[in-house]
């Protein structure tokens, strides 16, 4: 009988911390500046300079540890990781080796209907490297050191993840927690969150770990999903045909354009990083009470928010999951509810309309007030649902009050029975046959008459009222 295999995944996630200045000097961390603007002798590694640890980096790392249920190591230390590369000015990266700032911790994820606890191995502090810019048709490479010395935490998971979907669910949840806590903006497209994926396969029931492959520097959730799927099937094929030995420990690169992984270097070419304690920095000593004070600054985290929103607003788990994935959306939702008092309708509008628009836009395109008013106008019957969608489209481009736009567009519904009376009477007089059919018991002609009435009101008739008046008249 053929064996069945399961996928075993562990992740290493690099996250840039939300600090104003770099980890060992006072240069700015701002993204998108002209090359090498945010540099100084310290982050350029000039001879004689020394690093001084930015206390805010420790604060944020401890905060991350608190948010992820880690144990905070009250004494931890920095180490040097030595290797030559043009983006690494000192030829060593200051990182943490055997005494990281946090150990343990976990993230609970829900993927494909299955709940899993992904345990964390550790979180450590380190500095980012610069960026190489390879020019086409040029024999040289340029280096931009703006990113060099930007503070990072590296979060390492246990091999607890079993599928591409779970890996993505984990990353989304982790991202939400870190963004909620103000630890990082986690913009994968800007490189402020990057994932290395370690993946291996094993026969179901086998408890050990087989040879793993590392896919480096993934910078979007979509690509993580695709890369895992692809690597999974590559390895499965090898195992299935009895060629499991051909899965070798190596680092592979994800070729996004071609949709496949390519070997970068094998274990034999792996660096010997010659880690040793950083002599320029004393050990990092953390006060236990201070850890508690940092814990107290944590905002409501996604799991707590989810529970509260389900209870308070009576929304379904799946809906809340969508609303809380982005902190700003959750905040927008709650602000809209405060203005409108309508949780269900507000949630519907955000899930179907606002998020649709945001697939192509980074910012929330209207204010909570505007959306709340729209919800209220629909409920009051001032405008129809169909008209409301037209109003919504206009609200995306303007800051005016919702009522003013409805007025301007002339979309106000006619909800007064008196005002509709004449229009409906006219329709009945013009369509005697349909009236006769209805009265003869062929009630399907009601729909036809309803349509005529709406058309005669130029779409502004409140359908509920129109229906009521029409029924009254036909019945009489």
């Amino acid at each position, binding site marked *: 009988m053929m064996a069945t295999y399961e996928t075993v995944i562990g992740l290493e996630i690099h996250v840039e911390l939300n600090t104003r200045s770099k980890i060992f000097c006072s240069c700015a961390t701002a993204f998108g500046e002209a090359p090498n603007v945010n540099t100084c*002798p310290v982050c350029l590694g000039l*001879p004689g300079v020394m690093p*001084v640890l930015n206390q805010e980096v420790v604060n944020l790392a401890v905060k991350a540890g608190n948010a992820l249920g880690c144990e905070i190591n009250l004494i931890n230390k920095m180490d040097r990781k*030595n290797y030559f590369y*043009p983006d690494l000015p000192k*030829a060593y990266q200051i990182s943490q080796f055997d005494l990281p700032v946090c150990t343990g911790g976990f993230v609970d994820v829900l993927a494909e209907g299955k709940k899993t606890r992904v345990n964390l191995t550790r979180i450590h502090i380190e500095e980012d490297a610069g960026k190489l810019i390879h020019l086409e048709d040029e024999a040289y490479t340029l280096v931009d050191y703006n990113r060099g010395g930007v503070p990072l935490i590296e979060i390492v998971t246990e091999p607890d993840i079993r599928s591409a979907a779970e890996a993505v669910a984990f990353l989304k949840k982790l991202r939400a927690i870190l963004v909620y806590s103000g630890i990082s903006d986690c913009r994968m497209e800007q490189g402020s969150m990057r994932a290395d994926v370690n993946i291996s396969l094993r026969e179901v029931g086998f408890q050990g770990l087989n040879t793993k492959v590392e896919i480096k520097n993934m910078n979007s959730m979509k690509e993580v999903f695709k890369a895992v799927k692809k690597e999974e099937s590559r390895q499965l094929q090898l195992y299935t045909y009895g060629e499991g030995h051909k899965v070798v420990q190596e680092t592979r690169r994800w070729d996004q354009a071609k949709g496949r992984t390519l070997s970068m270097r094998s274990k034999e070419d792996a660096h*010997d990083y010659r880690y*040793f304690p950083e*002599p320029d920095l004393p050990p990092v000593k953390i006060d236990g009470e201070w850890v508690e004070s940092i814990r107290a600054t944590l905002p409501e985290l996604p799991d707590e928010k989810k529970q509260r929103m389900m209870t308070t607003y009576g929304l379904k788990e799946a809906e809340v999951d969508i609303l809380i994935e982005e902190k700003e959306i959750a905040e927008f939702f709650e602000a809209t509810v405060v203005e409108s008092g309508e949780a269900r309708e507000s949630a519907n509008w955000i899930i179907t309309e606002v998020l649709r628009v945001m697939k192509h836009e980074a910012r929330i395109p209207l204010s909570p007030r505007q959306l709340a008013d729209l919800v209220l106008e629909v409920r009051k019957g001032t405008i129809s649902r169909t008209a409301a969608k037209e109003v919504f489209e206009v609200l995306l481009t303007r800051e005016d009050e919702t009522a003013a736009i409805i007025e301007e567009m002339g979309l106000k519904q006619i909800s007064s029975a008196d005002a509709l009376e004449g229009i409906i009477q006219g329709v009945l007089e013009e369509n005697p046959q349909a009236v006769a059919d209805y009265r003869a018991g062929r009630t399907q002609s009601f729909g036809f008459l309803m349509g005529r009435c709406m058309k005669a009101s130029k779409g502004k008739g409140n359908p509920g009222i129109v229906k009521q008046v029409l029924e009254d008249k036909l019945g009489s």
Partner: protein
Amino acid sequence: MDIAKMTIKAIHTGLENKDFKAEEVTRAYLARIKAFDQGIGAFLSLDEAGAIAMSRGIDEKIQGGEAPGLLTGVPLAVKDNLCTRGLKTTCASRMLEDFVPPYDATVVGRLRERGAVILGKANMDEFAMGSSNENSAFYPVKNPWDMTRVSGGSSGGPAAAVAAGFAPYALGSDTGGSIRMPASFCGLVGVKPTYGAVSRYGLIAFGSSLDQVGPFARTVEDAAIALEGIEGFDPKDATSVEGRVRGGYTASMLSGVKGIRIGVPREFFAQGVDPEVKKTVLRAVKRLEALGAEVEEFSLPITESGLSAYYMISSAEASSNLGRYDGVRFGYRTRDYDGFEEMVVKSRTEAFGQEVKRRIMLGTYVLSSGYYDAYYKKAMLFRQKVRRLFKEAFEVYDAVVSPTVPVLPFKLGEKTQDPLAMYLADLFTVNVNIAGIPAISLPAGFSEGGLPVGIQFMGDHFEETKLFRIAYALEQDLGLNLVPELKEVK
């Protein structure tokens, strides 16, 4: 004004009393350097224009009624591994032959603020690796007391500059004896302060956990004044120590040695120590006893293992510290290369000297996986032991005494083919750096052939005060004449 014999104190008094001008002092030193340094090689570069401009500015201030501080208008030589803004800082290496730092080392900045006049940058062993100053990529430094002999290293340039009367004091750095050893060979006072007492910011790193900046001077008092000028917490150096009350050495050193307990570690006077060195040092110890110090022999078995541990730790750190010299951003870059790796390999191969390469290889080896535990980790464990043994000793003694160097200044070329024999010169100095404690070396007398012999006092962390006290008492008692005769070399 006999410039060759001037001390910081004498220059200060002269400026205060307006006996002479700062510019005259600076010009006198520059003239002497030009007359004699060709034969010695103490300087790698001079900053004549800067020094004259600085001293003129000082004169204007003094003229305007400003009272000069102790270091104001006083010239000095700075070892070429201390960054000086706008002045080449080469580490005596081809690698940094054209490197001009855009910033001052903290110690340099502090001295400039105090009105110090930097004459130039002093020669050294390449990247401070060496014990004879023969590893300079440019030229060796000769001992002003005997030009056929070495100055000692790695701060041979600053030492020779002060000994030859090119400057009243100088700044050096000491990783395993690099101040004390040349101070001993050149008949000077040299201080290696407590690790963390003086900022390392701007000192081009060799062994970061061992390096300290310190002064060379002709007198104990001058050394104390110079140390007071550079020490203290620096927010740019995370290993510098905050909150220690410092200074006051020149006042407290006058209190004598009565009741001071001095330990004499047997192992530091054992075989391998030149008999003349041993005799001279023990004679000085006897003098201290006569002055009221309590002297006692004890055992401190750290010398040989300490030397091994030192070479492993310092080389490990150096292998990492020197990684940045890859030809990418600054320093030497090879002419022809194909790709990044070849550029790095060729640049480093061409621009580093033999000794630097030897240490990088040693350091890389002891840190590499599979060897780390057997070498680096073991050395770090021994380091803890050295600290503990010193702590225990300082529970009993105020200071521990030893010869600074086991041998007399040796001939140029004598040990260059035998690195191990060269390393043995550091036998008595390295443990001080391993433990991070302070030590002072001062002249104890001369050999029969007229070569200076240094005596070293080691103290507990931040106990420089006691060391200055002992050194001052001994210096006053010995009353040595410490000015060598120089022959002009054209």
